[in-house]
């Protein structure tokens, strides 16, 4: 039981990661794929955020009342990764808009037909 509950944050990460990954692979809709990709990335954000946290720790601003501090570095790192994720999503959605304009569909199955024709 300790194995399961002691590091529950990692279980959350793994479950989210698999859900996201599954959506990316299985869904034929290009927007849904991007949503899956986002969930996948969020799981990694949680991995970073939770590993920087110490139990009962506080923000790393020195004060006589506290002795335990959370590590700020992973949190700062993941801010960068979130920005990268936003940029990726924006670019992905922009491509989907252009694909819709060029092909008239964003369903993988129909796109494949169009591809065969051209």
């Amino acid at each position: 039981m300790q194995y399961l509950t002691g590091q529950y944050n990692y279980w959350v990460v793994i479950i989210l990661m698999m859900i996201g990954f599954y959506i990316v692979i299985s869904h034929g809709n290009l927007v849904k794929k991007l949503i899956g990709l986002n969930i996948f990335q969020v799981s990694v954000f949680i991995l970073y955020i939770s590993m920087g946290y110490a139990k009962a720790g506080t923000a790393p601003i020195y004060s006589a009342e506290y002795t335990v501090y959370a590590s700020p570095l992973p949190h700062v790192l993941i801010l960068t990764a979130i920005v990268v994720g936003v940029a990726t999503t924006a670019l992905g959605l922009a491509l989907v808009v252009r694909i819709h304009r060029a092909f008239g569909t964003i369903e993988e199955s129909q796109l494949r037909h169009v591809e065969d024709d051209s």
Partner: protein
Amino acid sequence: MSHLLVLLVIIPLVATPLCILLHRQSLIWPVVFTVSWLCFYIACRLVIMVQDGGELVYFLGNWAAPWGIEYRLDTLNALVAVIVSGVNALVITFARASVIREISADRIYLFYSAYLLNLTGLLGVTITGDVFNMFVFIEISSLSSYAMISLGKHRQALLAAYRYLIMGTIGATFILIGVGLLYVMTGTLNIPDLHARLNAMETTRTIITAMAFLTVGITLKFALFPLHSWLPNAYTYAPSVVSAFLAGTTTKVFIYVLLRFLFSVFGTGNVFDIVSLDNVLLICALLAIFSGSLAAIYQNNIKKMLAYSSIAQIGYIVLGISIGSVAGLMAGIIHLFNHAVMKTALFLCAACIVYRTDTVNLNSLRGIGRKMPWTMAAFLVAGLSMIGVPLTVGFISKWYLILAALNRDSWLLAIAVLVGSLITIIYVWRVVETAWFTRKDGGQADNVIGKVKEAPLSMLIPLWFLVIANIYFGIDTDVTVNLARHSAELLMGLK
């Protein structure tokens, strides 16, 4: 402290917004041209400083190493920086006319800014000594390359860019997970620091997991065999200049990233003795060589053929790495350089053909060799180089690769390399035959080469510059072999 190292990243980065401000194609191209050659000059200066196994270190903002981000240059990444900036300088020299032809006028300034961002990212990945910084640069270069691919004329370019985006982001996120797990175990992100701490501790399952995520993520980025599905379409439908640039640089940089992680972070003990990753890489490399070459034979689209052949050539590089000796690594690194020289030349030939005929379909290019003799002669020389004919760079790569295989007494590997070369002959020959030995029959409706002229000099000069490099480095091998030997010895920890 010399600022030369950091300038390599800062110059193209600062020039990027400048491109958007200038807005007019006639103003932008000279700027990009100057920036590119300046970067190449700096890279050459740097490689001379570290050619004998020395190291250059630059602390960003003057914060000392494990706390601040450091840029660190040794022989290996100096060589990669020269490859990237050299290929870039020649491609940009070539690009002017081709870009005007293939990209709509109102998007040209955006194209050049994405291009410079890509250059920034690739050079940043090459010289940084901090793994998280490396991730950020990887994403800078990847995002800009998705945007550049989507600028292709054909609407398939959009789909190719989208698929590359999905695959590339999964790869980058895998790299991010690997970096995170390493940080959990060691509390540091600096490469030499990571190496020291990882080797001081027991190899736990977390470290092995990190290695797995990193290896899969990075091999996805450079399209090693089972993870290569994004590459053929991306290279085929991208604007010709972009294909040439990406084929010459992106895959090389990511192979460098793999080497950096496997050897400079994890160390040979972890990679080869505990996990025996060499066997996995060996199998992938062999499959890549054969599947890539065989698929290339059946392509009628020259760019797609070259893309599949890229997959095979990546296989050769990884084969060298997976042999796991100094000789093998050396062969891999030599081929890293040589493949950049030959594949860029081949893609530039394709760009010339597109410029004049607007097609890369072999069926409609019968007799093109008589109309564009210089372009197709360049294709022939670069093609021979890819086969591995003596007096070309390709021969040097194959020679060292076979030598490394025989050093390990594996005759099968040596034979595999030779058979791969034989398959290469087939698809290079198909183009040569179409270009020179088939009569153009007037009745054929899809034959577009009736009044085609030779490509303009502004394209032929950079192209032939590369072709001559193909021959020069095949005869005078001192420079490449020395650099590769020093790099391989550094990576194996012999220095």
